[in-house]
C-alpha cells in the first residue's frame, strides 16, 4: 500500500486513506478538487479523482434510452378498461 502524505487545507497531514474517506463529501461539495493539497503529491489519488470525475461525466451520455413498445400502452388501456370505475373519478384532491 502506498501511503502518500500531504498537507490538507487545514494544515493536518492527510494520507491516502484519509483523503479517500473525504472523497464523497469533496465530490458533493462541488469544489475544484485540483486545489486539494493531497492530490498535488499523490499520483494515485489524483488518477482516482480523474477517473471518478470522468465516470460521472460519461454517465450523462446514458440518456436518453428507448421508448417502450406500443404494446405497453395497449396493455395499460386494457387494464384500465377492465378495472372499470377509476379513483380519479372522485373529486380531485390536487393542489397543483
Amino acid at each position, binding site marked *: *500500500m*502506498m501511503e502518500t502524505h500531504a498537507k490538507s487545507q487545514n494544515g493536518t497531514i492527510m494520507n*491516502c*486513506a484519509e483523503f*479517500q*474517506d473525504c*472523497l*464523497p*463529501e469533496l*465530490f*458533493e461539495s*462541488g469544489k*475544484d*478538487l*485540483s*486545489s486539494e493539497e493531497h*492530490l*498535488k503529491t499523490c*499520483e*494515485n*489519488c*489524483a*488518477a*482516482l*479523482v*480523474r*477517473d*471518478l*470525475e*470522468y*465516470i*460521472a*461525466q*460519461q*454517465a*450523462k*451520455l*446514458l*440518456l*436518453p*434510452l*428507448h*421508448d*417502450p*413498445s406500443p*404494446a*405497453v400502452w395497449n*396493455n*395499460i388501456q386494457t*387494464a*384500465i378498461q377492465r378495472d372499470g370505475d377509476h*379513483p*380519479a*373519478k*372522485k373529486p*380531485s*384532491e*390536487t*393542489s*397543483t
Partner: protein
Amino acid sequence: MSTGQTHPKPTHQHMRRNPPIAGEAEAIAKAQAGDARSFEMLYALHKRRVYSLCLRMLGNVAEAEDLTQEAFLQLYRKIGTFRGDSAFSTWLHRLSVNVVLMHLRKKGLPQVSLEETLEPSQEDGPRKDIGSRDLTLSGSIDRVTLERAVENLPPGYRLVFVLHDVEGYEHNEIADMLACSIGNSKSQLHKARMKLRELLRTGERKEPAA
C-alpha cells in the same frame, strides 16, 4: 499533480431533470379528474424515463415493459393523491422505483431491501490501496462499455448511480425516494463509482487478450 486539467470538470447541476413541460400541469389536473386523454399525454411525456429506469435496473426488455406497465397503472390509481409537493416527474419516479424494488424483492434478491442494500458494507467499501499507478481510465470509455459496467453493479449501487449520475436527482430527493439518509445516498454513489472504475479498468485489461 493537479486534476481536472485533462478531463472536463463534472457539473454538479443537472440540467435535464424536470425541465418545464408545456401542458403538463393541466394534463395532471385533468387526469386527476379522470380524463383519459390527459392520462395518455402523461404517459407519452414520461414513458421513456420510467422505461429507462426499469430497463437499467432489470436489464431485460420484457420485464422492463411489464414494470413500466405496472408503474403507470399505479399512477392511474394514485394520481389523485399527487399534491404537487414535489415535481410530478420526481413523484412518478419514486412510484416507479418502488415498483422496481418490489419486483426485485419478489425475484428473491433480498439484498435489494433498501435498508440492507443502502447499509454501508465493509466488503464493498472504497479501497484504500489504489494499487497500480499506471492504470487510469483512458478517456475513451464509450456508451456501450459504460452501460455494460452499470449492468454489473449490485442493484443498490446501480439504483443510486442511475438516479444521481444518469438522471440527475439530488441526494435529498434520492434519500426521499429510497427512504434512506442523504449520507447513505452519497456513500452508495461513491461506492458505485468506485465499483464502476474497477469494472471499467478490469475490462480495459481484459480487452487486449480477448
